[in-house]
């Protein structure tokens, strides 16, 4: 299998879907002639033409609203937010229109909104956020947060195939840093099925996105102390794989939930509450959460490093839990 970066896997997936389904088109700012701020769609306009790789004015409301309209008449739009942060400008179109359309009107809205998310490169308060939990609270939206090149490609195919509005959070910090073997042929990865990133017996570490790799480094570090960590990569938050989480916690009796988004009201709270409700008898320790503190994402490197959960933080929490 060819080795592809996380970013190349997304490009490959998009290109494959566009070649197999002429209903699929891309819409966003600077995605056409320029190939996208991160070059995910580099060369696409030459292959698919101006009307299937559509540059728009700077207008997220128009972009997402247009996706809904085009989807209602039979197309499969894939929008790019230049940065996930800018999705706030299109909130109404997602939350008020697209998410509620099927429930109240019975017509499907098969759209994908790609959201380059996450920090780690001094992007500051407006180019670094992970806004997934805001949307996880909205009934009718699905959410994918791939952590590996293979998942990036397979979850994207599933997102485009899905008859519902899907937010696809692609972590910018993984774009070119992460490589892996990715099957060349088309494949899908079903939503709502977590992936065991590492098997273990002592502590369950539940996470997604770029934090999967922070978790892996931390697990490796504590392995030397004889602590066996099971890492569960949720892959999708809506729907999320409760059974896999409860199953893993049933085995290890200890749970650490980790995310890069801020703590209060983060999706980790939902997971922790679910474990408390449904696996209380299995637990040998309180459920722990590690997340960013409740601040905007800071710009300056030492501040940002303190903000984003680090390997040391995770390793320390794993040791605490193991010793509990």
């Amino acid at each position, binding site marked *: 299998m060819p080795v592809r970066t996380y970013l190349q896997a997304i490009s490959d997936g998009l290109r494959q879907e566009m070649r197999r389904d002429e209903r699929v088109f891309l819409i966003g700012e600077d995605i056409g002639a320029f190939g996208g701020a991160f070059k995910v769609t580099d060369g696409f306009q030459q292959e698919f033409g101006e009307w299937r790789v559509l540059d728009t*004015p700077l*207008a997220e*409301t*128009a972009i997402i*609203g247009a996706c809904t309209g085009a989807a*209602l008449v*039979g*197309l499969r739009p894939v929008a790019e937010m230049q940065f996930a942060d800018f999705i706030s400008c299109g909130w109404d179109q997602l939350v008020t229109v697209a998410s509620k359309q099927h429930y109240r009107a019975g*017509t499907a809205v098969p759209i994908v909104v790609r959201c380059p998310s996450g920090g780690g490169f001094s992007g500051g308060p407006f180019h670094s956020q992970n806004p997934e939990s805001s949307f996880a609270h909205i009934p*009718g939206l699905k959410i994918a947060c791939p952590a590996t090149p293979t998942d990036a490609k397979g979850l994207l195919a599933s997102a485009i195939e899905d008859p519902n509005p899907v937010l696809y959070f692609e972590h910018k910090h993984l774009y070119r840093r992460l490589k892996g073997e990715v099957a060349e042929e088309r494949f899908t990865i079903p939503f709502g099925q977590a992936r065991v990133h590492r098997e273990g017996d002592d502590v369950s570490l539940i996470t997604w996105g770029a934090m999967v790799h922070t978790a892996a480094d931390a697990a490796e570090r504590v392995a030397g102390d004889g602590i066996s960590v099971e890492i569960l990569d949720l892959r999708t938050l809506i729907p999320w794989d409760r059974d896999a989480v409860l199953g893993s916690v049933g085995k290890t009796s200890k749970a650490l939930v980790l995310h890069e988004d801020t703590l209060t009201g983060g999706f980790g709270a939902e997971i922790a509450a679910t474990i408390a409700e449904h696996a209380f008898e299995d637990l040998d320790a309180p459920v722990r959460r590690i997340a960013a503190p409740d601040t905007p994402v800071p710009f300056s490197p030492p501040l940002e490093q303190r903000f984003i959960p680090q390997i040391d933080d995770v390793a320390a929490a794993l040791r605490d839990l193991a010793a509990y």
Partner: protein
Amino acid sequence: MAVAREAEPVGSLHEVRQAGLDRADLLRIFRDMLLTRAIEERGHILYRQGKIPGSFYTGRGNEAASVGVAMAMGPDDIGAPLHRNLGVHIVRGTEPWRIFANYLGRTDSPSRGRDGNIHLGDARLGLIEMVSHLPAMLPVAVGCALAFRIREEHRVAVAWFGNGASAKGDTHEAMNFAGVRRLPVVFICDNNQWAYSTPNALEYACETLADRAEGYGFEGVVVDGTDVLAVYREAHRAIEKARLGGGPTLIETKTMRMEGHAVHDDASYVPRETLDEWARHDPLDRYRAWLRHQVGMTEDEEDRLSTEVKKAIDDAVARADASPFPDPDTLEDGVFAAAEEVDAPHFR
């Protein structure tokens, strides 16, 4: 000074025939306007009787603007009408009993009790359901037009908004994008002078809202929204222009909201003399007089239409009322669509 074109009123039958309407069309327009008003009048009564939950909105004074535009749409065109545009639903063929069922929150309504009042649509009729966040449907309609352009179909999207919604950013983004790409979309601004209790002087500072079209690179037209035939003529012109690749048009229909924002609102903030003045231009009275004078509509014909409308309303209310309330056990059904639903798209 206004830059938008001001449409002439429609005068003679000859002019109307040139616009492509025959006598049957003209009487059908009258019938649809009567039916529109009658449904809302009956709805108002049902609301006062406590049968309609929530609130209730009417479009009294806007019947000509709604019916005139809808008559100009083609069968494969798509529209996103709002809460003062019941007439659009009527012209496109929404059955009155389904409208009442939606008012009443019944299970056989278009929204299956999930949404109320005139938040309804029908994919088979090319009607998209409005949301309350105005003008959120404008970008959606632009997306329909974009799809038509991508697939090179000769179809047009028609999007409604109002003088209040004109102040919100969605309007700008939708029109700017449509203008840049010359998309086949027609924007209809029903300017009924009030946004809830806010007068136009506090909504915008330009002379007419249609003037803004110039800034987006397309034509703006102001038309008397109480003149159904003038509305039809301008909408027809704009829709066919869009169909032929001529890009968007913004049509501002000048109307008056003759009742409150919703039925709980007595609109005491609207000067009585303003309403009296507009009442003299009531769209139904005006068109009735025109039909009698220009087309020779007889009292018999008019009686027949009125009787037909009254019976249609009685039947519709009975049928809607026979539909049960939704089963609470279905509360969680339908949040997400199933895969097979999009293999056969609801909208063509």
